[in-house]
C-alpha cells in the first residue's frame, strides 16, 4: 500500500528539471522576439542590451519586413503549394494505397508496383535535384506546378504505405456488400472506403503539410527562376539582401514561423498523433 502511494505521487524534482529545460526551447524564440521588437539604435553591444525588453513597444519592424519581403505573396504561395499538394496527395495516395493494399497479396503485378513505389523512399533528393531542374524547365513547369508535382511524388511511398497498412483493419465484407448492391468499384471506393480511412487522412495530412510547408530545397532549385517565393525562400533572399539589419531580419523570421505556430496551437493533438502514427506504422 505504501509503494502504491509512492508511485502515485507527483515527482516535483523531475517537473522542475523539465521546466528548467524548457529554457533551451524558449530562449532562441525569446531572443528572436526581443531583437525583432527593437530598433538598430537600441542594440548595444552587450548581451543585456540585446536580450532586454525594448523601451518602446513597436511593431514597425514587422510592418517593414512584411513590405520588403512581400510577405503576403510568399505566404499565399506557401499556402497554395501546401493546400494543393495536400488535396492531390490525399486523393491519389489513398487510391493507390487502396488498390495495392487490396491486391498485392493476390497479384504479382500489384505486389511489384508496391515494392517499386516503396523503393522510392530510399532515393535522396540530391540525386533527383539536377535532372528535375532540367526536366521541369523542359516541361515548362519550373514554377509552383512543378514543385507540387514533385511533392506529390516524394510523399507517395510513405503515404501509400500508411494507407495500405490501415486498410488491413477495414473488413472486405463492407465492399462486398456495396458490390452486391450494384455499386461500381470506383463508386464503392469513394463512398465507402475513402470516408472510413479518415483517421489515416489526418495522419497523412499532418505529415505532408509539415514537410511541405517547411521544405526549402525543392522550391529553391525548381522555382528559383520564376521570381516566386515561398515563405522560407523569402527569408533566404532577405538574408542575402538585407542581412545586416538584424532587427528587420528577425521580424521577418518570426513572421515566417508564425503561421505554423498558430496552426500548432489549434491542432496540437492531431499533429502529435499524426507524427507518431506516421513514424511508428
Amino acid at each position: 500500500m505504501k509503494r502504491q502511494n509512492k508511485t502515485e505521487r507527483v515527482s516535483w524534482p523531475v517537473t522542475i528539471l523539465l521546466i528548467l529545460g524548457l529554457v533551451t526551447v524558449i530562449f532562441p524564440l525569446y531572443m528572436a522576439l526581443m531583437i525583432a521588437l527593437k530598433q538598430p539604435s537600441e542594440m548595444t553591444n552587450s548581451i543585456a542590451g540585446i536580450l532586454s525588453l525594448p523601451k518602446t513597444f513597436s511593431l514597425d519592424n514587422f510592418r517593414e519586413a512584411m513590405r520588403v519581403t512581400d510577405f503576403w505573396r510568399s505566404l499565399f504561395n506557401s499556402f497554395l503549394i501546401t493546400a494543393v499538394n495536400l488535396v492531390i496527395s490525399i486523393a491519389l495516395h489513398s487510391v493507390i494505397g487502396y488498390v495495392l493494399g487490396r491486391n498485392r497479396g493476390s497479384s504479382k503485378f500489384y505486389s511489384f508496383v508496391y515494392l517499386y513505389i516503396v523503393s522510392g523512399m530510399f532515393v535522396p533528393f540530391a540525386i533527383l535535384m539536377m535532372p528535375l531542374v532540367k526536366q521541369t524547365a523542359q516541361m515548362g513547369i519550373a514554377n509552383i506546378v512543378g514543385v507540387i508535382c514533385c511533392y506529390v511524388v516524394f510523399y507517395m511511398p510513405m503515404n501509400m504505405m500508411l494507407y495500405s497498412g490501415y486498410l488491413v483493419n477495414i473488413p472486405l465484407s463492407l465492399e462486398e456488400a456495396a458490390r452486391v448492391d450494384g455499386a461500381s468499384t470506383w463508386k464503392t471506393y469513394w463512398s465507402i472506403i475513402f470516408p472510413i480511412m479518415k483517421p489515416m487522412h489526418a495522419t497523412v495530412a499532418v505529415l505532408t503539410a509539415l514537410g511541405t510547408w517547411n521544405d526549402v530545397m525543392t522550391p529553391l532549385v525548381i522555382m528559383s527562376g520564376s521570381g516566386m517565393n515561398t515563405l522560407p525562400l523569402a527569408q533566404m533572399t532577405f538574408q542575402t539582401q538585407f542581412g545586416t539589419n538584424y532587427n528587420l531580419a528577425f521580424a521577418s523570421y518570426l513572421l515566417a514561423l508564425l503561421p505554423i505556430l498558430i496552426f500548432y496551437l489549434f491542432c496540437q493533438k492531431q499533429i502529435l498523433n499524426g507524427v507518431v502514427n506516421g513514424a511508428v506504422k
Partner: protein
Amino acid sequence: MKKINDRERTYFFMTLPILALFFCFNTLPLIKGVIYSFTNFKGYGSYDWVGLRNYVDLFQDVRVGKSYLFTVKLAVTSTIVVNVLSLLLALGLSSKIKFKSALRGLYFIPNILGALVVGYIFNYFFTYILPAVTKTTSMLASTSWAWVAIVAVCAWQSVAMNTIIYISGIQTVPEEVYEAGAIDGATGWFKFKNLTFPLIMPFFTINMVLCMKNFLMVFDQIMALTKGGPAQSTESISYLIYNNGMAGGQFGFQSANAVVFFVLIVALSVAQTKFGSSKEEQL
C-alpha cells in the same frame, strides 16, 4: 465473371496514371541522373561521354572526401546526441509529473519550425550571443568548432521528434512489467536497462533510422549556419551537390557524387533495418 473483369479494369486504370506520375518525377530523373554521371555535362551546352572518369575522379577528390567524412561525422554524432537526450526527456515526460501535456506540447515546438529559419536564428546566437558569454570568437568561424554548432542546431530540432516517438514507445510497456520488476527490486538504471529499454527496442530502431537518414541528407542547417565554411569544413554531401552541381558547372561530376550518395543511403537503410529487426526478435 464480367463483374470481376470490371473491377480488375478499374483497379488498373486507377493505378496507371499514378504510376506514370511516379515514374515521371522519381524514376525518370533517377535514370537521367545516372546517365549524366557518365558525362562531362556542365549544366548547359553540349557534353561528351566520359565513361567512368567521374567516378575515378570522385574517389580522388579531396573536397568530396572531406564532405563525406564531415557528413558521416555529423550524422553519427547527432544521432547519438539526439537519442540520448530524447530518451532522457521521454522518460521524464512519461513519469508522474505536473503539467504533463503542457510540457509535452512545449517540448515539441522546435520540430514544427522550419529548419532554415531556425538556422538563421541560431546563426545570430552563435555569432553574437555565445561569443560574448564565452569571450571567444564565434564557433561558426572556427574550422574545428563549426560542426559542433551544426550538431547543436540539428539536435535542438530533432530531439522533439524522437522524444514523442519514445514517449509513445514507453506507453506500450504494460504496467504489470514494472510491478513484477518492483518485486524483484528493479529500480532506477537497472529498471531502465533491463525492462524499459528492451521493450522499446523497436522504437529505438525507428529513431535511429529516422535520425541517420535525415542527418545524412542535412542541407537547410548548413545553408543557414555556415554555407559550407569556414574553409569548406562543413560542406555536407547534399550541400556540395547543390552548390557545385547547380551553380559550379559540375553537373556531370556531382551527378556521379549523387549516385554514390544514393548507394550509401540504400545500403545504410537496408543494414539498419536488418540490424534492428534481428535485435527485436530476441524479445
